[in-house]
């Protein structure tokens, strides 16, 4: 657990909002306005070194100050939300105080906030703001759009050691050493969580009590990693195991559920609950005979009935866990619902119309995604991640919540992490990192090079969004995609 951001940044947000409000309510020379501007100036001066700008940026519901993700405590979350609403309501995704803002007296902030106050009256508030700032020669401050934020990102890191994008983890330091540490930590967390899940299952089989504290702790660490930078855990979620499918699948579902939950803005405590729901969603399968679980052919009606019971049995096993009644109440519904489908046409049958819970709808998406991208004994081929996503999108509104599925597709990109791709350059690669938001079909790809002995070795990572020259064509484009399992490739082994 890393140290949280200093309250100074929270004070910056509050001071900004106070100034905006004071200017909205009072005349320029009112004491409330004067005081608010003075406080804001003081905080800005303390927040940075002389000669450095200060940027306040909003992206995907997160706030960044000078490119660092701001971890908002419970106290400040309401303020953060108000700030986000205030800025995005004016189509502003970033404000930059230039270095010369240090020399500006506090009362000069008033014209800027006065402009902001009136901006919403106009159809294109951002352009209007920029025009007003020009007119008044307020060159010490500028406002940024969504596009500007993306354009302000430096180049993507390759093995040669360039910096990561600015909107990246505040935990990860630059340099390949920290990346290696992150991967090691990710593998430790994954391995430990897998071990705990198996221990819980063993205890259940033996009729012994099983506590949730260890599982909760692992999931909390995974949540922290995903909040910080989700790429390691997404990479590990591509793990597949022929022998231990159920447990690995449960781990992957937990990771993907947390990732999707974080992407759409679920608060972190709820993410931990969601992660546990994912981890335990198939706990009921310990009661399904192995010969049914691993049957190569189609299940007959009796076997299918037994298999269908696993959702209900998962709930029962959760009830047996040593956890508080409140936690059990939060955990039991999503596993019950994860095969119910969005339109309730799934199982177990429900006797009344109801809405599947949010967590149930999330689990449904990530469960199916992981399942159909996994090789199974009863299926000749599994789908490549991109084909799986495409197939799932056809079932938006019936099997899956259309909005959540859309969010998942945005999160994963057209070619999700772990997809094996062939590019127009003739190179083969594994999608290593999801794309920047503008180009959903242009992820970062780890090139795979054949070593001549029928194996692949990982090469450099390239960004498919890179262009030749400033306005040229894209350097590389995906022309074909495959399931890595077809080539016996375990993506996670190549992505660190």
């Amino acid at each position, binding site marked *: *657990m890393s140290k949280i951001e200093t*309250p100074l940044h929270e004070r910056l947000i509050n001071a900004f909002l106070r100034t905006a409000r004071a200017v909205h309510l009072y005349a320029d020379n009112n004491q409330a306005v004067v005081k608010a501007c003075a406080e804001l100036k003081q905080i800005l001066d303390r927040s940075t070194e002389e000669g450095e700008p200060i940027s306040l940026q909003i992206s995907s*519901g997160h706030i960044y100050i000078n490119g660092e993700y701001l971890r908002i405590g*419970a106290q400040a979350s309401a303020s953060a939300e108000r700030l986000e609403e205030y800025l995005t309501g004016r189509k502003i995704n970033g404000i930059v105080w230039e270095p010369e803002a240090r020399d500006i007296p506090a009362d000069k902030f008033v014209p800027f906030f006065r402009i902001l106050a009136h901006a919403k009256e106009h159809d294109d508030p951002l352009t209007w703001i920029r025009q007003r700032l020009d007119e008044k020669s307020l060159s010490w401050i500028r406002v940024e759009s969504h596009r500007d934020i993306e354009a302000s990102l430096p180049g993507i890191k390759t093995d040669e050691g360039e910096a990561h994008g600015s909107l990246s983890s505040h935990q990860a330091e630059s340099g390949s050493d920290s990346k290696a540490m992150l991967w090691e930590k990710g593998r430790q967390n994954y*391995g430990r969580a*897998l*071990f705990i899940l198996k221990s819980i299952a063993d205890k259940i089989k033996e009729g012994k009590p*099983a*506590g949730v*504290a*260890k599982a909760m702790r*692992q999931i*909390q660490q995974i949540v922290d990693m995903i909040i910080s930078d989700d790429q390691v855990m997404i990479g590990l979620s591509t793990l*597949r*195991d*022929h022998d231990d499918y159920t447990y*690995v699948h449960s781990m992957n579902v937990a990771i993907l559920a947390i990732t999707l939950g974080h992407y*759409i803005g679920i*608060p*972190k*405590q*709820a993410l931990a609950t969601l992660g546990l729901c994912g981890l335990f969603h198939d706990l009921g399968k310990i009661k399904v005979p192995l010969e049914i679980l691993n049957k190569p052919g189609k299940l007959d009606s009796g076997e299918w009935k037994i298999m269908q*019971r696993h959702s*209900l049995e998962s*709930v*029962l096993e959760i*009830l047996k866990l*040593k*956890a*508080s*009644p409140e*936690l*059990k*109440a939060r955990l*039991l*519904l999503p596993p*019950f619902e994860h095969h119910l489908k969005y339109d309730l046409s799934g199982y*177990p049958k*429900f006797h009344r119309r109801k809405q599947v*819970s*949010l967590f149930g709808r999330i689990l449904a998406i990530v469960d199916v995604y992981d399942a159909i991208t996994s*090789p199974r004994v009863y299926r000749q081929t599994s789908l490549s991640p991109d084909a799986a996503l495409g197939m799932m*999108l056809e079932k938006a509104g019936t099997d899956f919540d259309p*909005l959540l599925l*859309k*969010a998942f*597709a945005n999160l994963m990109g*057209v070619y999700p992490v772990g997809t094996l791709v062939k590019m127009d350059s003739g190179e083969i690669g594994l999608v290593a990192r999801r794309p920047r938001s503008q180009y*959903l*079909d242009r992820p970062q790809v780890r090139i795979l090079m054949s070593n001549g002995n*029928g194996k692949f070795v990982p090469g450099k990572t390239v960004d498919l969004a890179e262009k030749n020259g400033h306005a040229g064509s894209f350097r590389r*484009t995906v*022309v074909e995609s495959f399931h890595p*399992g*077809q*080539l*016996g*490739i375990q993506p*996670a*082994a190549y992505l660190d």
Partner: protein
Amino acid sequence: MSESSKVDKGSTRTYTEEINAARHAVMVMARAIKNRSIYPREHSGIMQMMQSAMKGLQTFSEKFGPLRLNVTRHALLYRDETVLEAEHTNDPVVHPMYRDGVIWVEFMPGIEQREFELFVDLLIKHRKPEEEAKTTLVTSLWESDLPHLAYEAVDPDLETTPPLDISVFKIISENASEKRAEILSSPAPATPPALSLPEHLSDYDRHSIRHMIEEEAILTRPEDILDVLLILLVNQNSEQEFQIVLKSLVDTFAESLARGEFVFCARCLRSIQNLIRKTEHKSKWRWRLLGRFMEQACSVSAWEKLAAGINDFHLEPKDVEAFNFLIRTLPEQIMEPAARLLTSARDEDLRRILVESIALHAKAHPELLVKLLKELNADAVLELLEVLERLEDEHIKPVLMELSKHRDAKIRARAVWMLTRKDPNAAMQLFALIDDPEPAIRKQILLHLGNQRSPTAEDLLLKYLNHQKSVTRDKGHILACYQALGRCGSSHSLAFLEEMLFDSPWKDTLNRARATHRKGAASALALLATPESKRLLRKGLYSLAPNIRKACRAAMAEADLKSSTKGTSNEQD
């Protein structure tokens, strides 16, 4: 002497001051934590200690900034200096943090009282390690997400876990090598595939998602949870697992009850009733366990939580109806929680429902009511007395007789009132209360005795007064006893009254009690109003002893006043 080797006395002083300040803040905090783990938190001493601990932290942070403490097995360190040593292996401050892997903890400027209290409570809660724990200190801290408390923790188990070896995960793929060769050798298609790109999330999408999340956050979905548990229940064939599910149902019921979700609770109960009806002859253990659900639903703790918040709920008619159903459907074990609820609930409809229900159960199970009356606190018993009034006499009399001996004066008084109102003769059975410390009770007893005109009442009073004549007692009480005797007595009392009036008048100076008895006797004779009692009074008027004459005059004047007042009021009638 070089610059670097010169001792900067100023900075050493400041450093020492800082360490001492840290040590002091930590000691005060540790003392507060230890005592809070022993004594109730509402204890004024404990509250003061907690406030002092907060003040210590605030004072430190104002001068020196955040207080970061490193955690070792046996101590807390500030800047490598020991500021607190663990007293023993079960030290409530150091040990839980070390055991759960906390490396350091930092109290940041601006920390609030509630954050500090929560931190302390978590330390205390996780003081003892549990096998198969539900939570740990670190998971709880993580959940709490205190904005002014930072910490770093390692998972002790994780530290010894080697990184995952991905190579052990098997992917089975037929013809993998052929496929590899095929993919590597085949030329790349000239054109990329025609993709249907998913749409970007629009602002409206993001707004909708946020709304979705906000909505979900406030939903507890009890109906869905109930349905799932019921489906699970009917699908269980094992007694043990049936019990597990039923326990969850009880928990769900209790949680919803505490939130005042009566409609939901009623639905829960109806579902169980249906199951009981369907199960009755089919499965003994199911039927037995379902019956036990009903009893468990009456468990006091669930209803206590309800009692705490019942006056805050805004109840609609359907809620009241559901509450009525709940109270009437649950078995007799509901009497106790209902009685306790009666002491809190202010809503008239709810009170009526509770009283009716208790009365109903008490008719069938009066022994339970008696038990409750013995065990509950005075406020609850007073409420229950209202219930008693609805019961048949043969049920309530023994109960009221018991209550007339209750330690609480209000309850005794009410029990006496209820007994004597229905049966004035009860006063004789309650004669012992003539010595009750509560004046109102004594007065009631004497009032009813006085109204009796019965030899039994007369004898009781005579014996009592005879015993009291040598005892120094409350003058008013003795006089009241004589007045009662005067009202209920007969010529049988004359001998005693004559003796008390005329005997040894010189003793009054030495014995104040004697004077009171003399006065009382005169008063009683006046109230008797028989020819013989009047004769004795007239005799007293001419006594040589001034105190006898005075007593008789006063008694006759009072009797005249009373009769003239009575006459006047009769005339007015």
